[in-house]
C-alpha cells in the first residue's frame, strides 16, 4: 500500500464521526480505568503511611509484606483473606441463584401468562432495586431480630411468639435473601426483556409441529433466554461480590465476614495494602466472569428484533391458578417492596424503639428543633439545613451524571455498533464495561488518590463536586452504553444510510433520526445512572466533603450512629424521589428502568 492510499484511508477513517468517538473514548476511558488499575497494583506493593512503623520500611518503598500476609501467613491469611473470600463466593453465588429464580419466575409470569395486575407487579417489582440495599437489611432486622443482640424483639417474634434462630436472623441466610431480592429486578428486567421481544414465530412454529409446552420451553424458550440468564449471573455476581452494606449490617452480629467488609476496614484503617489486594482479586474475578460469559454466549449473528413481524405471543393460560397465583405474587411483592417502606415511615415517628403505642409517637424527627437528650440536638429532617444541602447535591449530582453517562453511553453504543467486529470497537466496548467490575469502594478510593494532585491540565479535584461527577459518570457508563448498544443493534443500518444519502449531517441524523426512533431505550440509559446515583453509597463515601455531602452518606452516618428515625426518614425520602422520578419519566416518555438494560 502506497503512502498516499494509506493517507487516504486515514482521511476517510477520520471523517466518520463514529471513528472519532471511538478513539476519544478509547483514550479517555483507557486513562480513567486502566490508570486506576495500575494504581491499585502499585499500591499492593508499597508501604503506606499508616503501616510504616509496622513494616519497618520507609513510606512508599517496595514491599511484599501485604501479599505475604494475605496469602502465606497461616491464621492471619486464613482469617483476613481465605475465609472471607470463601464466604464472598458463597454469598455471591447463592444470591445469583436467588435473584434469577425470583426475577425469572416473575418475568415469565408477567410476560408469558395471563396473570392479573401486571402493571402493579412490574412497577412494584423494581422497588427493591431502587432502595439502597442495606435498607432492606434494616427492614429484615426490624422484622426478624432475636434476643442475641438484645433490645426490642423483632415484629415477627412479637406477633407469633416464635424466637427466630440465629442462622435465620443473621449471617449467610438473610444476606442471600436480601441481596437476592435486591437484584431480582435485574433478572426480571433482563429475562423479561428477552421474553417480551422474542420472535413469537419461533414458538408458533413449534406449536404447529405439535411440540408440547415443556418441549417448547426446553428447546426454544430456555436457549433464547440463556444469554440473558448468563448476563444476569454476571451482573448480579459482580454486584453482590462488591456489595458492602448488607453483609456489614446482617453479618456483624454473628461476625460473618466477606471481602468487602474486610476491605472497608483495611482501606480505612491501618492496612490499605490488604484492601487493594482484595480489590484486585475482585476485579480479576469480575473480568474472568465477563470473559466466560463472552465465551459461552459467543457472537450471536443477529440482534435485530424490530422487524415489523408479528410479535403477539400466545399467553399461557393459568386457568384456575390465575387468581390464587396473582394473590400470592402480589402478597410477596407487598411484603418485600411495600412493607419495608411502611416500616421506615412508622419507625421515623417512634421515640423509644419497639414501643408502638400511640403515646410513643412523635414528629420530633421530622419537624422538631432538635433535643439535646435524644440525638445531640439534631434538628428534624425537614428543618435540617445539612439534609437540604445533601438533597440538593444528590439531585444535582444524579442529574449531571445521568446526562454525561447517558450521552456518552449513547454515543458509545452508536459507534460500537457501527464498527462492530473491529478491534477498536471491541476494546472500547470492554472499556465501557470495565468500570462495572471495579468494586465501588475501591474505585472511589483510587480516584481519591489519583485526582488528589494536579495531573497535567486537570487541576487537583480533591473535595470538589466534579470528582464525584467523574467517578459517577465512569462507574455508571456501563448501564448507559449497554442500552445504547442494544438500541443500535436493534436498529437496522439502512435507516441512517438513507439520511446519509440525502446529505443530512451527522448531528442532524443523530438528533432527528436515530434518537427519536430509539427514544425510550436511550432515555432509559439516562434513567439508570440517575437512579443508581441517587442511592449509591460506597462509591462516594470516601469522596464527599462537607459542601458536597449527599443524601446517602448522611443516611449512612445516621445509621451508623443508630439514629434510626432520621435514617428511616431519609430513606423514605430517597425512595419517594426515585420512584416518582421514574414514574414521571415513564409517563412522559414511555421509558423506564426496566427497558434500560434491554435485551443484551
Amino acid at each position, binding site marked *: 500500500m502506497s503512502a498516499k492510499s494509506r493517507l487516504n484511508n486515514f482521511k476517510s477513517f477520520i471523517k466518520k464521526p463514529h471513528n472519532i468517538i471511538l478513539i476519544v473514548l478509547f483514550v479517555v476511558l483507557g486513562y480513567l480505568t486502566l490508570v486506576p488499575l495500575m494504581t491499585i497494583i502499585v499500591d499492593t506493593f508499597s508501604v503506606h503511611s499508616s503501616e510504616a*512503623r509496622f513494616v519497618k520500611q520507609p513510606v512508599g518503598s517496595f514491599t511484599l509484606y501485604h501479599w505475604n500476609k494475605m496469602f502465606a501467613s497461616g491464621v492471619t491469611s486464613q482469617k483476613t483473606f481465605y475465609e472471607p473470600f470463601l464466604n464472598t463466593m458463597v454469598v455471591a453465588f447463592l444470591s445469583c441463584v436467588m435473584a434469577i429464580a425470583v426475577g425469572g419466575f416473575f418475568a415469565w409470569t408477567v410476560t408469558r401468562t395471563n396473570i392479573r395486575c401486571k402493571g402493579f407487579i412490574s412497577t412494584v417489582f423494581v422497588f427493591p432495586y431502587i432502595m439502597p440495599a442495606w435498607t432492606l437489611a434494616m427492614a429484615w432486622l426490624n422484622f426478624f431480630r432475636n*434476643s442475641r*443482640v438484645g433490645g426490642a424483639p423483632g415484629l415477627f417474634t412479637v406477633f407469633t411468639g416464635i424466637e427466630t434462630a440465629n442462622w435465620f436472623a443473621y449471617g449467610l441466610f438473610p444476606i442471600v435473601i436480601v441481596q437476592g431480592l435486591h437484584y431480582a429486578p435485574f433478572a426480571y428486567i433482563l429475562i423479561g426483556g428477552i421474553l417480551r421481544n422474542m420472535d413469537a414465530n419461533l414458538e408458533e412454529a413449534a406449536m404447529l409441529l405439535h411440540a408440547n409446552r415443556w418441549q417448547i420451553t426446553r428447546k426454544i424458550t430456555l436457549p433464547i433466554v440463556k444469554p440473558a440468564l448468563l448476563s444476569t449471573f454476571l451482573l448480579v455476581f459482580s454486584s453482590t461480590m462488591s456489595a458492602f452494606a448488607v453483609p456489614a449490617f446482617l453479618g456483624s452480629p454473628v461476625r460473618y465476614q466477606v471481602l468487602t467488609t474486610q476491605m472497608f476496614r483495611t482501606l*480505612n484503617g491501618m492496612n490499605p495494602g490488604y484492601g487493594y489486594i482484595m480489590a484486585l482479586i475482585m476485579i480479576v474475578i469480575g473480568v474472568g466472569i465477563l470473559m466466560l460469559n463472552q465465551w459461552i454466549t459467543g457472537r450471536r449473528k443477529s440482534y435485530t428484533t424490530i422487524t415489523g413481524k408479528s410479535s403477539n405471543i400466545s399467553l399461557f393460560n393459568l386457568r384456575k391458578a390465575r387468581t390464587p397465583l396473582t394473590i400470592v405474587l402480589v402478597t410477596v411483592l407487598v411484603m418485600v417492596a411495600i412493607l419495608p417502606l411502611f416500616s421506615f415511615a412508622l419507625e421515623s415517628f417512634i421515640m423509644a424503639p419497639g414501643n408502638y403505642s400511640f403515646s410513643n409517637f412523635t414528629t420530633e424527627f421530622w419537624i422538631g428543633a432538635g433535643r439535646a437528650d435524644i440525638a445531640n440536638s439534631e434538628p428534624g429532617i425537614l428543618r435540617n439545613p445539612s439534609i437540604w444541602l445533601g438533597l440538593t447535591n444528590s439531585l444535582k449530582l444524579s442529574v449531571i451524571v445521568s446526562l454525561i453517562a447517558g450521552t456518552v453511553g449513547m454515543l458509545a453504543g452508536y459507534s460500537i455498533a457501527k464498527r462492530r467486529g473491529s478491534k477498536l470497537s471491541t476494546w472500547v466496548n470492554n472499556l465501557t464495561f470495565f468500570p462495572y467490575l471495579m468494586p465501588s469502594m475501591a474505585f472511589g478510593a483510587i480516584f481519591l488518590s489519583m485526582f488528589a494532585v494536579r495531573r497535567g491540565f486537570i487541576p487537583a479535584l480533591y473535595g470538589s463536586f466534579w470528582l464525584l461527577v467523574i467517578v459517577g459518570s465512569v462507574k455508571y457508563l456501563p448501564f448507559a452504553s449497554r442500552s445504547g448498544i442494544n438500541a443500535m443493534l436493534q436498529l437496522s443500518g439502512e435507516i441512517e444510510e438513507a439520511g446519509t444519502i440525502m446529505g443530512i449531517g451527522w448531528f442532524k441524523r443523530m438528533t432527528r433520526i436515530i434518537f427519536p426512533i430509539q427514544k425510550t431505550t436511550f432515555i432509559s440509559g439516562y434513567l439508570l445512572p440517575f437512579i443508581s446515583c441517587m442511592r449509591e453509597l460506597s462509591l462516594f463515601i470516601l469522596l464527599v466533603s462537607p*459542601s458536597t455531602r449527599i443524601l446517602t452518606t448522611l443516611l449512612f452516618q445516621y445509621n451508623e450512629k443508630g439514629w434510626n428515625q432520621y435514617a428511616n426518614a431519609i430513606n423514605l425520602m430517597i425512595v419517594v424521589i426515585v420512584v416518582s422520578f421514574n414514574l414521571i419519566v415513564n409517563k412522559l416518555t414511555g421509558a423506564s428502568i426496566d427497558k434500560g438494560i434491554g435485551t443484551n
Partner: protein
Amino acid sequence: MKKLLACALLTSCMVASVFATGSKEEPVAAPAPVIEEMSHDELVARAKEEGKVVVYATSSRIAKAASAFTALYGIEVESSNLKDFELIEKVAKEAQAGVVGSDFVLAQDAGRLVGELIEPGYLYNYVPPTLKDVVPVAMQNPLQVFAINKVFIYNDENVEGSPYTNIWQFADPKYASLLQFKNPFQEGVNANFLTMCTSDEWSAKIAQAYKSYYGKDIVLTTPNAGYEWIKAIYNNDLIVGTSDTTIAENVGIKGQNAKRENPPVGLFVYSKARYATSKNLALKPAMEMEPFSGFYYSLYALMSSSAAHPHAAKLFIEFLFSEAGFAPWGADCGTYSANPNNPIQEDIDFPFATWQPLLVEEDGAFCFDNRAEVEEFLNQYIY
C-alpha cells in the same frame, strides 16, 4: 490535514502530561507557622477580619457549637462532621494535594493523629494563651478539649447492685454471648483501648484481676494477659455491634431481664445513660469493676498548617473551652471539658476526677506503635 496532525499532536501532548506530571509532584508539608503572641482583643479583631472558619469534627455537636460561635462573634462557620478515619484520610490527602481544607480539626484517635497528621506537619498544636494555666498541663500537648468515657453499662431493671465486678466475667462461659462492644475496626478509639490493654501496666493489672476471679495465676498462650483477655472475650462470643446508640438500646430496653439469666451489658459511651429517661431504658454503669470499668478517649483541637482563617480558628478553639462553647456537649452527660470550671450533669454524672481512676486512658504514642500488632492479633479472633 495539517490541522488534523496538529490536533493529534496537541492531544497526545496533553495526554502525556496527564500521565507524566501527576505522581511527580511531591507533597510539601508546610512548616508549622510561628505562633505569635497577641492579646485576646487583637485575636478577636483579626478573626473578624477573616470572617469565616472551616472546621472538621468527629462530633456532630460541632454544628451547635458553630451556631453559638457565630452568634457571639458574627463569624461564619463551615462545620462538617466526619468519621474518625475519614477525617484523618481527608486531612492527609488535602495536605498532600495542597488543597486548603479545614482551618482546624476537632478529632479523636490519638494514635493516628499523632503519627499520621502531626508528625508530617499537616496539623500543629496550639494552646490559647488564656488557657495555659487553666487546662491541666498533661492535657495540653496535643491539646485535649474534652474527654469522653465508654463504660460497662448493664440493664438494671429489677437488679440490685451490679452483677458485674470483674472483666474476666466476660471471658467466663457462664456469661457467653453477653457483652456487646462496637467493632474496634469501625472506630479507632475502641482499637486504641484494646491496644492499651496490652501495655505492661494494664496487662499486669489484668493478670491480677484474673487471679482474684479464678484464684490462680493466668497461664499465657499469648504475649501477655492483655492479649489473653482480648482473645478470651472474643472467643466467648462477644457480640460485635455497629453503633453505640444501637447497643445502648439493645442493652437497655425493659422487659429483658425477666427472660434472661444475666442482664444485658455493653461497653459504650456513657452519654447514652441519658436514654434511661429520654427513651425510658434501663441503663446503669458498673463502676466497681476490677481492674477497670471502661476507658476514656479525648477530642483534640489541632490547627491546620494550611489554614486560610488561622485567627478565627484560634478563637474558635478558645471558645470551645468556654461555658458556651462546651454547652452543646455539656448539655448531656459523658463528656468532660478539659477546663475543669465547666459544669457536669450532676443528676446523672460524676466529675471526671471520679471517673479517671476507673478507666483505661489512651496513650497516643503507645497506640501508634502497637495498634497494628493488636489489630493483626484481633483479626484472628474477631472473625
